[in-house]
């Protein structure tokens, strides 16, 4: 009991900031409505880009449209939720330019934990809803044989996918300390990563499989769990059983992310920033 209370107390600083951010976003109702609709449309247009391809062909990379819906849905749901809770790490270059990162040093919590909980973008819930709907449609129309296995894979894939994308945001933030004006470079694996995650990895060339299959483990966020759930064989280098390894990808993503963040912070404290 006392231990739980202590832990809750330790989270109080983070809760206070997040609750306040969430309140202030909903305070301006008209703005928030516009944000929600915009975010919803972003999700819809991204889905439409995939759908357009399937008006020309029946299968891509060995997957029909309803199967791709599962990949797209898993990827976009996980990414939108990661974006909701970690996306503001993208603002780090502004903090670095203005010197406002220093303010975080004056507070008795770890800098990264403060940055992560410094904001929350509730509008991304609308885009997550598009992902959830696509995932639901994919699951119900592609003839998944339900089993405990499939259910575990789905949950495992979603949670790991969320964590993997979140780790990518941390990795990008760590690199910002070095990239400075070249901040856009991290878009390649953060937003490029999201785009890759919605694709059937079977269409990738070998270098792409290496980069987005393993180094930035995007195939593990949606494609591999989906292939395992659907009972499809994976392509060369990416067999279906790897779908079970999604948590390992999440761990790898966070390991590289935290390592980079540590390097970045050291660089900053060393005065190179």
């Amino acid at each position: 009991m006392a231990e739980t209370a202590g832990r809750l107390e330790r989270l109080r600083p983070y809760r206070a900031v997040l609750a306040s951010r969430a309140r202030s976003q909903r305070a301006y109702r008209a703005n928030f409505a516009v944000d929600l609709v915009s975010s919803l449309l972003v999700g819809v247009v991204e889905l439409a880009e995939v759908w357009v391809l399937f008006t020309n062909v029946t299968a891509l990379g060995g997957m029909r449209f309803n199967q791709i819906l599962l990949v797209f849905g898993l990827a976009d749901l996980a990414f939108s939720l990661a974006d909701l809770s970690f996306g503001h790490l993208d603002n780090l270059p502004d903090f670095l330019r203005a010197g406002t990162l220093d303010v975080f040093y004056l507070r008795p919590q770890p800098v990264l934990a403060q940055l992560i909980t410094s904001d929350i973008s509730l509008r991304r819930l609308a885009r997550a809803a598009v992902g959830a709907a696509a995932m639901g449609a994919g699951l119900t129309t592609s003839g998944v044989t339900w089993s405990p296995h499939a259910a575990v894979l789905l949950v495992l894939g979603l949670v790991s996918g969320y964590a993997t994308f979140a780790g990518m945001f941390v990795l990008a933030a760590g690199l910002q300390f070095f990239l400075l004006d070249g901040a856009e470079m991290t878009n390649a694996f953060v937003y490029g990563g999201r785009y890759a995650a919605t694709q059937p990895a079977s269409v990738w060339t070998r270098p792409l499989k290496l980069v987005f299959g393993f180094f930035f483990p995007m195939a593990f966020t949606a494609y591999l769990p989906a292939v395992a759930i659907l009972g499809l064989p994976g392509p060369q280098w990416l067999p279906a059983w790897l779908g079970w390894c999604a948590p390992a990808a999440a761990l790898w993503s966070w390991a590289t992310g935290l390592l980079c963040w540590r390097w970045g912070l050291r660089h900053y404290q060393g005065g190179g920033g």
Partner: protein
Amino acid sequence: MRATARVYWRLLAAGFRRQSAYRLAALGGLVANLTFGLLKVAILFATVRAAGGELHGYDTASMSTYVWLSQGLLGSVNLNGRTDLALRVKDGQVAVDFLRPVDLQAATLATEAGMSLFALIPRGLPSVLLGALVVGMRLPSNPVFYLLGTVSLLLGIVISAATVYLVAVAGFWLVETRGLQILYMLASGFLGGLYVPLALFPGWLRAVAAATPFPSIMMDPIDVLSGLGGEAHAAGLVLAQLAWLAGVAAAGQALTRAGRRRLEVQGG
């Protein structure tokens, strides 16, 4: 003499240093651009192959041309809807712009077009060259397409600036243009053919796109430059672009006048 030479050397070095900041930004943009390009190549090549090697006139080589030209154009046409002018309209600083003895629309378009042209050097050309080098692409042999293509490219850049200008001046009437800006971003990317060439769209959606200026920003210059559909088709596209430019420019001019009147009546 030596002192003068040193001054110029210093200026040169300072300019070089200033440029190096942009070089880093350009490099960052280029890496992101190439990554997206490679992913587009993967999915679009798979689509062409799934269709039997040819799809609405595209084979893999011409699809590659589409991908890298579109990635190259990305830094030079405005597909995000954000402009400095929108901010100036919002905070009222545009009243100062109206005091200058130049036409607000013409001045804005000229500045935007200048920046867009410059972006071709660090962003546009390297994207196309590297894409061609890594993936390969087909380019037309007939010089007419390069001539028409250059005109079409310039028109695309100006139409983009003139269309996004409409979003900015809508701020004279709307308190918040952010919703409109995001709408522009989504429509210009999707209907402009950023992710999938418009030829692959179903007929009704192609018709929707054709009713907007967005295809003339990106898709048309790409079609003209890649020589798909022949010379007459290319010339027709350029003429259509001219018509769109006249249309959006006239709309911009009308909105600017009305907005200025509104500003003068309300006193800012």
